């Protein structure tokens, strides 16, 4: 189905359809297969305990496991992010840095594009302002799921509106559709190959190993919402009134 879709798009582009029309047809006529990031795990786990440093399945646990499949195997190119991840550093205007290998201390960047998912992510900073790494917010502002819905349950705090509105008004990296990520987008960014923090710090510097809110309220308890801890990359639920960090995201084509 994916190749059929791509063929159709190629035909439409060749026929000089506008991009908007192509996009519309793409969305209405075909199923959209979204790409998942791999986990970043490039090493084998033994049984019942112990880990290897490489993906060589041990005698104690010989069957295929995480490290044997996925982008971490098929696209393991360390030049654009750990293992199967593929990132591009963007300046504050959304222009890719000419030297993608530069470190943050030499030249800063404001956003990172995930070339697998297509999402663009905010990079936290150490300078004063709305993007500072230590800014925290209670859950529930602009783009929180269910905000304004007639059946919405529990309290929605608007603390992070200053971050969302501020990023849109400054058109951070050229975009004005910033939002708080879904739980799957957020865990998708995590690199489970490491921890403290569980993220590729070559692309996401200034990431504190702490909770980062998702846009998702917890269905099981309207006192809580879903959060990802970037110490280990695990998702769980926290009371909405707890102040935690937020990393904004935006989707292509919106």
């Amino acid at each position, binding site marked *: 189905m994916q190749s059929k879709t791509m063929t159709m798009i190629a035909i439409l582009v060749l026929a000089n359809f506008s991009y908007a029309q192509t996009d519309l047809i793409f969305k209405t006529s075909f199923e959209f297969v979204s790409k998942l990031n791999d986990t970043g*795990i490039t090493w084998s786990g033994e*049984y019942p305990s112990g880990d290897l440093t490489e993906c060589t399945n041990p005698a104690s646990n010989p*069957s295929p496991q995480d490290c044997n499949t996925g982008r971490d195997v098929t696209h393991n190119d360390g030049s654009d992010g750990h293992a199967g991840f593929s990132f591009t550093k963007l300046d504050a205007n959304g222009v890719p840095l000419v030297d993608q290998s530069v470190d943050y201390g030499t030249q800063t960047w404001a956003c990172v594009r995930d070339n697998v998912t297509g999402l663009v992510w905010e990079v936290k900073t150490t300078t004063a302002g709305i993007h500072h790494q230590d800014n925290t917010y209670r859950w529930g502002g602009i783009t929180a799921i269910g905000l304004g*819905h007639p059946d919405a*349950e529990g309290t929605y705090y608007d603390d992070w509106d200053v971050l969302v509105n501020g990023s849109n008004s400054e058109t951070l990296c050229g975009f004005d559709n910033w939002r708080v990520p879904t739980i799957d987008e957020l865990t998708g960014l995590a690199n489970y190959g490491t921890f403290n923090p569980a993220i590729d710090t070559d692309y996401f510097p200034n990431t504190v190993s702490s909770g980062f809110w998702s846009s998702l*309220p917890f*269905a099981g308890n309207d006192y809580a919402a879903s959060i990802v801890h970037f110490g280990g990359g695990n998702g769980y639920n926290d009371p909405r009134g707890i102040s935690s960090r937020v990393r904004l995201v935006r989707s292509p084509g919106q």
Partner: protein
Amino acid sequence: MKKIINLALIYFLLFSQIVLAQQTCKTYITDEWPDSRYTVTDISGDHVVTDKQTGLMWKQCSEGLSGSDCSVGTLASLTWKEALDIADAEDFAGFADWRVPNQKELRTIVARNCYSPSINTNVFPNTPNDWFWASSPIATNDSNAWIVYFGSGYDGSSGRGGDGRVRLVRSPGQ
């Protein structure tokens, strides 16, 4: 007296089962896991589910269960190694490339608008409120591997020698 106790017991069992089996979904949380996202296919009696959003193909039933409503058989409890071994040996619906999903893949079938269980029960019937293994060892503890709790959708890790449930996956076209 004995009869009354028996009746009370029967009533309790019925009532508690109804409570346990009752899935709750919230209308204010966007349903990104509707029936229309999935295709259920019967291949010579083997039921598989294709997730049109991720492209992944899943076994409709948790390991140990079968039938169109996954009510036949006994739910398997497996260690992490047993889960990986079963996947490696699996031949189902004409495919031999079944595997235990990694943690990010496993999360994609969590229906976060619902709990008890947090999954589309039309597409994945009779899914227990229980822990399901991922194929992913966890970096923070070399005795554990990643898991997802389908009672409410959060994740964590569990000892590799402990018991977990398994739902197998494959990547069509790879």
